[in-house]
């Protein structure tokens, strides 16, 4: 670590996209390895500013900065301290949740919130205020952040704690308040590294919503895969997978896992090829996949033991899975509407289903209470996320129509997924947007922190 810190951070120009691989722009890529190098990079970023980037899992343009600097934070990757008794970890912002799991699971601790991929950094998790399958119980990631250190536009490093305006602007603030350097995060105790999972099928959307409403509170983790290509009476049919960390006594007496119940076991398949032709995912292929996926799920099964990766992160098993959409890339559309807006949710699901969007990765989840961040995404209610190939004709206009319905129902779309929202709708979706802009104007009057997302949506 010490030997190479006195050399300059790596700087090169490169084309940058989000996980959806749309709208590439070029930026100066800087990879700081110390807090000092980060501060130098921010100070030297020039007129087009800088933005921190983690592992690039935001789908749209949140971690791009055309013509400016993009700070690759994965060089700041130290886990500084683990409180094994109290269950907290202090680590650099560039540490991934994968790394945290490797380090923490053997000690009997788990991250408080994990999204559908563990290849996100702690800094990114705070910047996007990510949520996971446990949102209805545990809330978003930043609810478990006890404090963080933030490098702000004036070059100062501030310690930011919950309950302050700067914390609430930074939680979900898409990296626009500054560069997060470290965070202290509260952890979740576990007895094993296995999950006890219940699976059931829902025949249609109403059945799904009813099941989630009635029994979600029994599970720490809950999510439903939904078949958006199913039509007619089957519209919104789904497979619910819900569960919790398996306690030690749930493991069979002579199971191999008994010997080392906290081992973090992962498997990775070969990566998706670098070049996949356009048009692999059509209505036919996706429809076939969805049919098989639905049929292979048990009608009802309880207490199945699954490893953490297969329960939380099935897609992480295929590195670069985003390439399967071909060179045109894809768009992820994720919105949330509140409780009482089930009619709007039904309407939108009906429209997506009628439009025959080839979407095989669609998930529906019931959100718990709203989170503290001014731009945090979750609202108490429902969220639906779906992936769609970007080259689908007329997709842009179709999603604009969905936006109107979402905004009309008092809902919002998720900025970490967004690559195409009409900026005029943002203020209606995020009522605290004016506060966010005001705080930014005061904290960063010269616009040191800027991203393609912030330019596009005028954040």
């Amino acid at each position, binding site marked *: 670590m010490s030997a190479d810190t006195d050399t300059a951070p790596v700087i090169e120009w490169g084309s940058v996209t989000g996980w959806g691989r749309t*709208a590439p*722009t*070029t930026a100066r890529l800087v990879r700081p390895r110390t807090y000092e190098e980060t501060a130098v990079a921010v100070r030297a970023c020039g007129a087009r500013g800088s933005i921190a980037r983690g592992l690039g899992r935001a789908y749209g343009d949140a971690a791009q900065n055309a013509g400016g600097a993009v700070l690759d934070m994965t060089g700041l990757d130290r886990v500084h301290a683990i409180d094994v008794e109290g269950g907290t970890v202090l680590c650099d912002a560039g540490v991934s949740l994968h790394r945290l799991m490797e380090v923490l699971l053997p000690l009997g601790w788990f991250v408080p919130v994990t999204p559908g991929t563990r290849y996100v950094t702690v800094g990114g998790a705070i910047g996007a205020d990510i949520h996971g399958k446990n949102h209805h119980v545990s809330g978003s990631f930043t609810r478990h952040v006890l404090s963080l250190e933030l490098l702000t536009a004036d070059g100062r490093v501030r310690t930011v704690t919950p309950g302050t305006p700067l914390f609430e602007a930074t939680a979900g603030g898409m990296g626009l308040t500054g560069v997060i350097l470290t965070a202290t995060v509260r952890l979740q105790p576990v007895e094993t590294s296995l999950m006890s999972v219940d699976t059931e099928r829902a025949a249609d959307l109403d059945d799904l919503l009813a099941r989630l409403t009635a029994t979600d509170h029994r599970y720490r983790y809950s999510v439903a895969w939904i078949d958006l290509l199913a039509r007619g009476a089957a519209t919104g049919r789904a497979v619910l997978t819900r569960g919790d960390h398996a306690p030690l006594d749930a493991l069979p007496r002579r199971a191999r896992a008994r010997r080392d119940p906290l081992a973090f076991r992962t498997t990775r398949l070969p990566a998706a090829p670098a070049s996949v032709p356009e048009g692999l995912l059509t209505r036919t292929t996706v429809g076939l996949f969805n049919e098989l996926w639905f049929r292979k799920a048990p009608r009802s099964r309880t207490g199945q033991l699954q490893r953490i990766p297969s329960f939380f992160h099935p897609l992480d098993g295929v590195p670069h899975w985003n390439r399967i959409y071909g060179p045109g890339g894809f768009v992820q559309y994720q919105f949330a509407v509140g409780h009482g807006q089930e009619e709007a949710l039904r309407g939108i699901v009906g429209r997506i289903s009628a439009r025959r969007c080839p979407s095989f990765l669609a998930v529906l989840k019931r959100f718990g209470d709203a989170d503290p961040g001014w731009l945090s995404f979750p609202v108490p209610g429902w969220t639906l996320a779906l992936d769609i190939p970007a*080259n689908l004709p007329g997709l842009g206009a179709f999603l604009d129509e969905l936006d109107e319905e979402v905004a009309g129902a008092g809902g919002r779309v998720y900025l970490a997924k967004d690559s*195409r929202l009409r900026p005029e709708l943002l203020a209606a979706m995020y009522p605290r947007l004016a506060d966010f802009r005001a705080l930014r104007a005061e904290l960063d009057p010269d616009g040191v922190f800027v991203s*393609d997302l912030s330019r596009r949506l005028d954040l």
Partner: protein
Amino acid sequence: MKDAFGLPQSLLVLGGTSEIALATARRLIARRTRTVWLAGRPSPALDEAAEGLRALGADVRTVAFDALAPESHEAALGKVFAEGDIDLVLLAFGILGDQAHDEQDPVSAVRVAQTNYTGAVSAGLVSAAALQNQGHGSLVVLSSVAGERARRANFIYGSSKAGLDAFAQGLGDALYGTGVHVMVVRPGFVRSRMTAGLAEAPLATTPEAVASAIELGLRRRSETVWVPGALRAVMAAVRHLPRPVFRRLPG
């Protein structure tokens, strides 16, 4: 910034009264474009074009720009880029000339070449440098099938477009990897003011069709767009016709 579908929020039209450019602007304003700069020689037609786009809800400004005065391009366009990012530059100026007359009047023939080719070289380079500084943006160049193979009937115009086309292709390669995308658009016969009174060629198209092809090309990040698309195959064949056969083609 452009969105995931390549739709721009800000547009600079070089040749602000071009019918193809205005059809494109209308189409883009209906989607994401909010800021439009129309660059051209100050004229009632330019103001009228701006007014027409304003009525669609865009913030439209005009800027004095003369393709025949390349020494002024840096200042004129610099002013536009200083006001904010431009997501799409549409290089749309060009004149058809009058082939029969121009063959007798070399000075007016050179004017066609200076407008369509050297004027575009200068404006194209100035725009490319500004886009490169931003790290993003598209430069869409309106070329023509007439540049693909010179014809007896319009080789003065055709040769100027051939020069423009080759320049734009080279510029696109020079900018590859810089975040700037260059798209060459080759329409066939477009029914417009420019071609009013001329005999229509096969596969004739409209400014609206060209606009729609440009929107699609932006989404696909295409480098070459033919309008209509069938011209790509037709011109691939025409390009290889022996001269004696080519000379005997009608038109």
